[in-house]
């Protein structure tokens, strides 16, 4: 992802600033080479030239979808640098935002992957349901995207009982919807034909390639930073890690749908256990200088492990900030996953890792047998793959059983 790749993201579905070169033999892909950096904005250098507090808003813009994860991860690291005590209520509010973000990000992704396989009906349904979450975060933070809720040493806004009860409603609503989606995904022929057995990443490969997040968990790897290296209030929160051993795109869909249900349970737990009153931020201002210090910070963003390294030199501006976004970690797995598959399977496989730089805007396909080069843009590829599946539907079904 992003960032630097990290950075970013792109439009998860329509045009992306990422470019892949695929090497094919006939219809089968033998190799792939990603070309990234279309959204490289030099954020790490910029961060060295802004103050610790200004960076809260800069680093939030690494990714607009997981903005709260980035800002929260940075704030968490900066608290280690400042050696600040964070009030408990602030951690609860921060975690609430993280989980709401996971809900809206997974709903968004579910719509995107359905669009990638040409199933726009479900795309419209998920994006409609996502609006419930967006309204709630707007109530809590004052903006739909880019909540800016975190600050170094806590959060910036308190939350009242009305909003908390709304959060309960939203959590139950999304949980019931997630069950409906799971039913649809597991029973619809259209979806099963395009995703079952596509984009295989075995458990051994997932561990070897250091795959992170739901992509790894869909390959049966039980790794979740929330559970393995608990931060904020996750060591007290009861929750299950969703894993599935299907290793294909279908499993990735199922894992994310079930994670939505788990997230809604976490949200309910947070609402019931949130401290009634108390401070929401430590006393650190824009003009507080940190000691010389360094810290590494990790959170589980919707797409997987997000990593920050922060170093201070005792002045108002940080010395070095390093960001590793989950999409960058998963890009090596994508290259592995597409090998041996058909050109028509590219959209669901690439979208399957939930790339924050997501879509492919221009794909070059080179046939190694006759060196013919063909350029596709994303729309043409989508149309091509739907047509191809329509044509080859019967023998494929027999082949895949």
């Amino acid at each position, binding site marked *: 992802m992003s960032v*630097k*790749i990290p950075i970013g993201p792109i439009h998860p579905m329509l045009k992306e600033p990422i470019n892949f070169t695929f090497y094919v033999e006939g219809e089968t892909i033998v190799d792939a080479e990603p070309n*990234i*950096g279309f959204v*490289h904005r*030099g954020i*790490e*250098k*910029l961060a060295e*030239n*802004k103050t610790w507090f200004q960076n809260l808003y800069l680093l939030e813009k690494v990714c607009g979808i997981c903005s709260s994860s980035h800002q929260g991860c940075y704030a968490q690291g900066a608290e*280690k640098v400042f*050696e600040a005590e964070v009030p408990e209520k602030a951690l609860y509010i921060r975690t609430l935002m993280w989980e709401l973000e996971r809900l809206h990000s997974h709903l968004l992704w579910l719509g995107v992957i359905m669009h990638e396989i040409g199933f726009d009906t479900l795309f419209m349904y998920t994006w409609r349901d996502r609006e419930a979450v967006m309204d709630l975060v707007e109530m809590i933070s004052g903006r739909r995207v880019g909540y800016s809720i975190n600050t170094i040493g806590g959060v910036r806004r308190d939350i009242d009982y009305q909003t908390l009860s709304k959060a309960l409603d939203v959590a139950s609503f999304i949980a019931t919807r997630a069950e409906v989606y799971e039913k649809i995904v597991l029973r619809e022929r259209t979806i099963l034909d395009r995703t079952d057995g596509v984009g295989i990443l075995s458990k051994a490969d997932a*561990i*070897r*390639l*250091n795959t992170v997040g739901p992509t790894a968990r869909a390959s049966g790897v039980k*790794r979740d930073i929330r*559970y*393995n*290296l*608990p931060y904020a209030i996750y060591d007290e929160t009861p929750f299950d890690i969703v894993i599935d051993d299907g290793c294909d795109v279908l499993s990735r869909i199922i894992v994310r749908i079930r994670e939505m249900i788990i997230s809604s349970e976490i949200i309910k737990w947070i609402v019931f256990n949130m401290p009634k009153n108390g401070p929401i931020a430590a006393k650190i201002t824009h003009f507080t200088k940190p000691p010389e210090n*360094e*810290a*590494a910070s*990790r959170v589980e963003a919707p797409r997987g*492990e997000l*990593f920050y*390294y922060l*170093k201070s030199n005792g002045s108002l501006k940080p*010395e*070095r900030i*390093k960001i*590793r976004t989950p999409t*960058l*970690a998963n*890009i*090596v797995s994508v290259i592995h996953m597409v090998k041996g598959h058909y050109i028509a399977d590219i959209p669901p496989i690439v979208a399957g890792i939930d790339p924050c730089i997501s879509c492919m805007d221009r794909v070059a396909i080179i046939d190694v047998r006759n060196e013919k080069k063909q350029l596709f843009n994303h729309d043409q590829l989508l149309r091509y793959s739907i047509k191809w599946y329509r044509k080859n539907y019967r023998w494929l079904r027999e082949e895949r059983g």
Partner: protein
Amino acid sequence: MVSIDELKASLGDLAKEIKTDKSGKAWVFVELDKLKKLLSLLRIDGYDHLSTITGYDDGEKIQLMYHLIKFNDKGSNDINVVTFTDRENSVAPSILDLYPSALVYEREVFDLLGVRFEGHKGLKRLLLPEDVPEDFHPLRKDFKINVEG
């Protein structure tokens, strides 16, 4: 949480220094020529997840930090391995054979800091366009930008 004594016992005299920070995370300092040996020991020990490679130019040397995790249910460990390379002639051994995911991280460090990884085939820029000058490495401290207005 990893204990210092355990680490010292398993790494022997490979590590130059091992320290913990306030939150209990271990920082292992190592000479450049022993880096690969140390990482392979850690890899055997179960540190199979490379979070990323951080490059940092402190003005005199270039620091390379390898952030590793050993997943072990609730008691997972994370440690940071730190090594230094020369600023003028920045070279470091590639760890692609130990951690295949280093592919993108090494290219990123090469791109932004100009550290050449020996043994990394096809090392080229990851993020910046191909047509920038060869010695353009924005995260070096002598490259300055102006964010005022």
